[in-house]
């Protein structure tokens, strides 16, 4: 029972990692860039939700979509203003750029007087409602995290599988030049990928907020989502979620069964092993260069 309990809490934590990793993968697939600002976008999402609910007095069901749309738009604007001018430059520049964006976002939020340096609780309607299933005790927050992740995954799957937009995004991620020749507006789709990634990050932030509270440094959890993305394979959307679940479960189990301190490094040990065994990740595509 203990094991199952640990597993479930690992899964709910893993869903958060998976959602942030989804953001990395969306951006990586579309533009081959890696965004180090994903954790900060998540933090921004949580703060945006907080502001809408407590300052503007939005009800919960209205604040959530409003936050997602707002952060999604922010992602689009970010891509247009900051990322697009250096497209085609080495990956390293884009990485540094997103690190800079992360610094700026964290700095800006910390500078909000009275709010930025405090920790807040997000007022959600489903707080403190433990669910019992046999001997298994689940908090409502964890159930919501798992449920929302599943729904979001289905939505994204449907988007990429059935909508014209999703198919176009897939095409441009496979070969940008060929997609461009076929009349697909590759640049606009890149912007959309950033927007989508930001929106997913906002969802992760809103889901994480009731569990860990909202504060300016909550974005550092993004660093733990990198292992999730690598384990799943940087270019696979289902891989991101699976990788997140793996990392979450490894972390939760090693925290209980292994000596103190292993829990914090467990995700990174998993990554190192993964990179040695299967550098492309569990679901990563294997490409070989033909000369």
């Amino acid at each position: 029972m203990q094991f199952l309990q640990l597993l479930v809490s690992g899964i709910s934590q893993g869903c958060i990692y998976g959602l942030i990793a989804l953001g990395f993968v969306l951006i990586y697939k579309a533009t081959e860039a890696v965004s180090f600002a994903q954790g900060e976008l998540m933090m921004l999402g949580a703060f945006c939700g907080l502001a809408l609910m407590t300052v503007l007095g939005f009800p919960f069901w209205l604040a959530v979509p409003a936050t997602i749309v707002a952060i999604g738009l922010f992602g689009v604007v970010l891509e247009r203003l900051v990322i697009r001018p250096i497209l085609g430059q080495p990956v390293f520049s884009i990485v540094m750029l997103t690190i800079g964006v992360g610094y700026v976002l964290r700095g800006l939020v910390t500078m909000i007087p009275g709010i930025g340096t405090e920790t807040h609780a997000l007022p959600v309607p489903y707080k403190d409602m433990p669910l019992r299933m046999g001997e298994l005790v689940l908090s409502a927050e964890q159930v919501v995290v798992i449920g929302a992740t599943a729904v979001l995954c289905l939505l994204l799957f449907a988007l990429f599988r059935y909508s014209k937009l999703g198919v176009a995004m897939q095409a441009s991620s496979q070969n940008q030049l060929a997609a461009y020749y076929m009349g697909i507006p590759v640049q606009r789709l890149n912007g959309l990928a950033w927007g989508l990634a930001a929106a997913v990050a906002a969802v992760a932030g809103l889901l994480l907020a009731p569990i860990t509270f909202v504060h300016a440094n909550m974005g550092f959890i993004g660093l733990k989502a990198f292992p999730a993305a690598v384990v799943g394979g940087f270019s696979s959307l289902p891989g991101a979620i699976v990788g997140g679940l793996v990392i979450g479960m490894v972390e939760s189990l090693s925290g209980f069964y292994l000596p103190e301190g292993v829990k914090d490094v467990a995700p990174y040990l998993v990554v190192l092993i993964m990179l040695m065994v299967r550098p492309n990740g569990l679901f990563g595509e294997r490409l070989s260069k033909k000369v």
Partner: protein
Amino acid sequence: MRFLFKTSYAQDLRLAKHGGHLFWYGLLGVALLSAPWFTPEYWLAQLTFVLIYAIVGLGLMLLAGYTGLFSLGHAAFLGVGAYTQAVLTGMGWPFFLSLACAASISAAVGVVVGLPAMRVKGIYLGMATLAFGFIVEEGFARWESVTGGNSGKTVSMPEVFGVPLDSAMAFYFLCLAITVVCTLVILNLLRSPTGRAFVAIRDSEISAQSMGIHLAYYKTLSFALSAAFAGIGGALYAHKLQFISPDQFSILQSIDLLLMIVIGGLGSVHGAFLGAIFLISMPQLISLGKDWLPDSVGQSPGLQGLVYGVVLISFVLFEPMGLYGRWLKVRTWLQMFPFYRQGMFKRQKSFQKSDRLK
């Protein structure tokens, strides 16, 4: 403007290309040598930190700027050097012997980290070094019998050939000497076949390989050398602060180091120094600027991060060559004075190349 007509290889390989170089670097040397006598104690300490960070920056520049492999866990090497030095000098080893040990242990660790570099590229390598950085940081915190854990470890002042260097001035000269040696090593390395091989790998792995460069060997070598420099820097850092704890070698420190060389100017030795000056002087500049800002902004703890972020973004967007690139432009403008043209340094448009097939 001085035109150089190179007529022999010896001329091409010369470190100081012409008398002007000798004059200006000589002047810089005189200024640095006489600095302790007319700078206040506080600024001398800052200058020492600039030298220490410049050593680390030189190492990271070799790796990121010249070999094109970037490390997101470089502070771990700094930490390995610092702890090695702290432990060995604590056991009574002489300074230079323990410094050599710090460098070689860091280099050995660098080789271990460099091993995945043979298999993975680009962002995956970044992930590997990031993971490594986290693991080492946690290792420092947990291995309490050696590192003192989270409560930290005190380090004594160095003793060189039996002479205790207990004044700030003496330690400054030690750092200056080591920095000069490190710079000369880097400069000579870069004009040697090894350095050329590094640059070839950075520019194109495939063409480097087809020219007969053993990729795995040179990539690992680059990691090892870079880690050795970081180890030396770490050892001096430990002596300067006289107290080390795991949180000084965190992933944020690694990112600061990357920020330093990017702002200094990737792919230039000057860049390592300019970046170190930037990193050390930035907090001072910010605290100077604070008085001009309203209190709610100036006193906020987020101000420093915000300024770093904005500076980093604007450099990557507008001046990819960093501070050194800016200096090149100013110098060219001065040299060509009435004939400088607007588009001389225009960045070429390039098509996005897929990293996946590299």
